[in-house]
Each structure stands twice: as C-alpha cells, then as structure tokens.
C-alpha cells in the first residue's frame, strides 16, 4: 500500500495509518479489534455502534477506542 492510499489517524494517542476509504468498522478490523467489544469516540464525539460500518475514516481523525477492564 502506498502512502497516498492511506490516511494518517490518531488512535488512543498513537499515530496509525489506515486504508483510504475505510469505514470505522474496517479500521477496527485492521487494528485487530472486534466492533462489538469496544466503544469508539471520534474527534470527541461518540460513534454509535450501529453506524460503525457506514462512517468513513477521514485523514487526521483522532479516535479513542475503549473497552471494559477490571476496576472497583
């Protein structure tokens, strides 16, 4: 994949690249994550799980991807 065919994004504070035109669901797949186990915030806005397959990743997007961990 050449650089021109990918987008630069920020995921959980780290810089990553993702295929141009990818949906958020596809981005999660490229990161090895399954959409039903995480919640996604894009540029400080929640992305509803039902729309992860439709919303396209844009160059420069900042994502927070979280899940449940042990806590009190």
């Amino acid at each position: 994949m050449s650089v021109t065919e990918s987008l630069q994004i920020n995921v959980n504070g780290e810089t990553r690249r993702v295929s141009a035109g990818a949906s958020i669901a596809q981005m999660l797949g490229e990161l090895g994550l399954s959409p039903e186990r995480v919640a996604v915030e894009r540029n400080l806005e929640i992305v509803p799980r039902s729309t992860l397959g439709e919303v396209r990743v844009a160059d420069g997007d900042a994502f927070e991807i979280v899940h449940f961990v042990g806590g009190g």
Partner: protein
Amino acid sequence: MNAPQQMSADSWTVAGRTFTSRLIVGTGKYKNFEENAAAVEASGAEIVTVAVRRVNIADPSQPMLTDFIDPKRYTYLPNTAGCFTADEAIRTLRLAREAGGWSLVKLEVLGEAKTLYPDMRETLKATEVLVKEGFQPMVYCVDDPIAAKQLEEAGAVAIMPLGAPIGSGLGIQNQVTIRLIVEGANVPVLVDAGVGTASDAAVAMELGCDGVLMNTAIAEAKDPVLMARAMKAAVEAGRMAYLAGRMGKRRYADPSSPLAGLI
C-alpha cells in the same frame, strides 16, 4: 418484612432492576482473571463494577475481562474511577454506555489523589448532566446527609457514601452519618469504599444500608475467594440482623438466667 422465613424473598431494586444479592464487587487489583472470576462467583454478587480504559492497540489479542466474567450473567456497572472533573466522568460514561448498551452506571468524581475523596461540586454537576442524558447514575459521595439529598434530588438512582477512603480498609468511620443518609433517602443507599473485613460489611448492613460495594477488601485478602465468601455471609448476616431489630443497649449487666429458684 421482618420474619426470618421471608429472607429468601429479600431483594432490592435500583432503577427498576431487582437483585437478591446486596453485595456489589469490583474487578480490580486481582492477580489474574481466573482468581477474579472465582472471587466474584464466591461472593454471590450479581453486579460487578468495571472501569473504562483504552484498548491496547499494540496487542489487541490480550485476554479481556469479558472472557472471564460473563456480561450476560453479571450486570456490569461501569465506573468513572480516575476522573477528577465532571466533564471527564461524563465523557467516560458516554463511552461506557456505547460499549455496554445500558445506562445504569457508577459515577465517581474524585477531588484529589491522596484521599480519593469525592469532589461533591463536580459530582453534583455530573449527576445533573447524566440524568438529562438518560443515564441512571449510582453516585459515590461523601457521607453527608445533605449532599446525599441533593444527589437524590438531581436524579441519582442510588446514593453510595464512603465508609472510609477508597482502598483504605479502615471500616465505617462515621456510623451516625451513614444512618442519617439511610433514614433520609428514598433511593437505595450502599456503602461504597472503606470496607476492610467482614465485620465492616455487616456494620453497613446493620445500619440499614441496601447494599455494600467493595473491591480491595476481597482482592487484597491473602485468600480472595475465601474473603469473598466471608463478605457474602457478612452482608447476609448484617441484613438479617437489621431486619430482626437488635436489642436495646444497657449500661450494666442483665442476667439471662432466672433469678427465681436459686438454691
């Protein structure tokens, strides 16, 4: 209800959900997921608290809490541990609602790292916003009957005063204020934080609390699974003692054997 034979029917309801276990346990600080799952099982808890954190994108195949503690069997109660402002807590819970799909959450907004004491100004602010957004927040708070009232008026579905600082294991420091909160509340009251051992949990229940939430007392016990069983028994014992109605206290002795017929 005060007849012992009705104990089997004893339950409590928060935000329309009914539970029979009055013990809520955390899922932090365990050595591993297996021990955590075994302790939760032994505690009999139906609700477990969980935190919301970034996924590890460097190693997404790591085992996850949900692999060991089934969210279909246990009610996951997402918390806002580590949040020091209303905005951080609200942001965290919006993500939690999206991750879990439900709106029953535990709100805690901390004031400082040393004591982890709640910041009540931010807590009240966050409660108001969350309720407007349709959340059902169970709210960690100071053991202050007035603050508890204000949270209830703001729409908190449960009031969760600390017994002592989070993770301190010091036990319930002010039984008077906990009892006043219980007396004044129209929503469930649960002691959240400060329990160190079984007797502390029993004290909370004897004061009339609807439940107890704890993490460290079980997780940091030498045998967490045994302590989880102890806590289950203590919460049940304390509840039964509360329902039974304890005897009055006397300043001096009162013999239990008859004085009449002494040789």
